[in-house]
């Protein structure tokens, strides 16, 4: 019997110590949620925003792999994933039966449930929380539908300010091709068909995505996004995201 191989403790590996992130001062955008000790949130909140087909899920999957390989535990959140209302929200979308304020508040409930049950506990436990979209998409969608911005800012004053927000920017023409490649059809909501911009889905998609992109640029003035050019290869994009996250971790 051979003796068990010695653990590999060569210098190179040894030098790559896992970074232990420091607790940074945190804040909510507005009033926040009651009963949270902001000083005790050790983890990091990383948000990836962008339209359907902008490459969000690909990038998040790669970031998870990289973060876990670097010794950080992760957890993921996203829209319509709460225990509380995700099923009902899905049904509401299928039927297009709720009016704007109602749907908007329903989404806010979904967000708040995940904030209190996954995001905040995750950060408290020192996890890297990766959010596949955050309040910005929700605000932008509502703003495109004419809802009052001040009302939305108050509503989403419950949200925690993330450590970093990436916005994957992809031109509508390119998005269309990616959506066709993935789903063979355009999505009713992602085409903004409820807005009545055009009865032609292709036209509506282009107009709606341009409108959403403009609203994102508007929000960027208040909320600090890192705009990422999403037309490049997934590898190139991921390197940019990692660099930025690396500096957050080293903080």
């Amino acid at each position: 019997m051979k003796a068990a191989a010695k653990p590999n403790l060569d210098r190179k590996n040894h030098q790559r110590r896992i970074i232990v992130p420091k607790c940074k001062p945190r804040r909510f955008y507005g009033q926040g949620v009651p009963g949270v000790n902001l000083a005790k949130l050790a983890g990091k909140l990383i948000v990836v925003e962008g339209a359907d087909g902008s490459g969000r899920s690909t990038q998040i999957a790669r970031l998870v792999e990289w973060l876990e390989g670097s010794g950080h535990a992760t957890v993921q959140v996203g829209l319509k994933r709460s225990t509380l209302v995700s099923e009902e929200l899905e049904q509401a979308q299928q039927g297009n039966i709720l009016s704007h304020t109602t749907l908007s508040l329903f989404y806010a409930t979904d967000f708040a449930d995940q904030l209190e049950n996954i995001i905040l506990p995750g950060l408290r436990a020192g996890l890297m929380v990766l959010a596949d979209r955050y309040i910005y998409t929700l605000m932008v969608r509502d703003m495109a539908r004419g809802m009052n911005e001040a009302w939305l800012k108050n509503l989403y004053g419950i949200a925690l300010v993330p450590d970093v927000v990436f916005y994957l920017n992809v031109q509508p023409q390119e998005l269309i091709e990616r959506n066709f490649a993935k789903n063979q059809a355009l999505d009713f909501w992602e085409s903004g068909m409820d807005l009545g911009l055009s009865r032609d889905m292709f036209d509506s998609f282009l107009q709606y995505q341009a409108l959403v992109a403009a609203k994102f640029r508007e929000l960027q003035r208040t909320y600090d996004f890192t705009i990422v050019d999403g037309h490049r290869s997934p590898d190139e994009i991921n390197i940019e995201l990692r660099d930025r996250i690396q500096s957050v971790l080293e903080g």
Partner: protein
Amino acid sequence: MKTFAELGFPGRLIAVEGLDGSGKSTQIYLLKRWLELQGLKVFFSEWNSSTLVKNATSKGKKRELLSPTTFSLIHATDFADRYERQLVPLLRAGYVVLCDRYIFTAFARDTVRGCPPEWVRGIYNFAAMPDLVFFFKAPLEISLQRILDGRPQLKYFEAGMDLRLSTDPYESFRIFQGRILEQYLAMSADFKFLVIDGSEPIEAQQNIVRDLVAAKVDLRHFVPHKRYEKK
């Protein structure tokens, strides 16, 4: 914060607020009968929320999934649904709409649960103010007695058990209701509540309610359209 009248709606909204057991539901029922028997266009909003929103709310309550924030938001969703699908169309159509509870219930309840009052009020600011709000102010003990005498099965959130005020649901309910009453009284002047003494006899209260409605709402505008001309 404008009323429906100030916003140019042809309809008028009358709301009643107060603790459970304050007698508000009896009073609004009698008001409804009075208006109906005069043949006026009146609608009592029974808060029929869509099945979708109702399912989510009752699931959250049954499984005790709600925090103060999600409790507030899911009720706001429910209210928005009724507001947009029921109240606004009725008021556009020129009805006198009677509401047993309105946004002030949420203001009081959510604030007691620890939500910031400005946040809650901000969320509900899509809703116009009622044209009249009656607040039935009964001494806490009377309200509690009316509710608790029957030894009802108090539900978890109804008794405010999520606030950990007491492990006994009845004791918790007492403390919770006391705090809600404080909140109501604190906002009474801001929202021009018409305060009715809920310890007076039912008839005496109804006299005041009817007088105030007659004085503040021009009831002649609520006669229905004639559907058939008699020959």
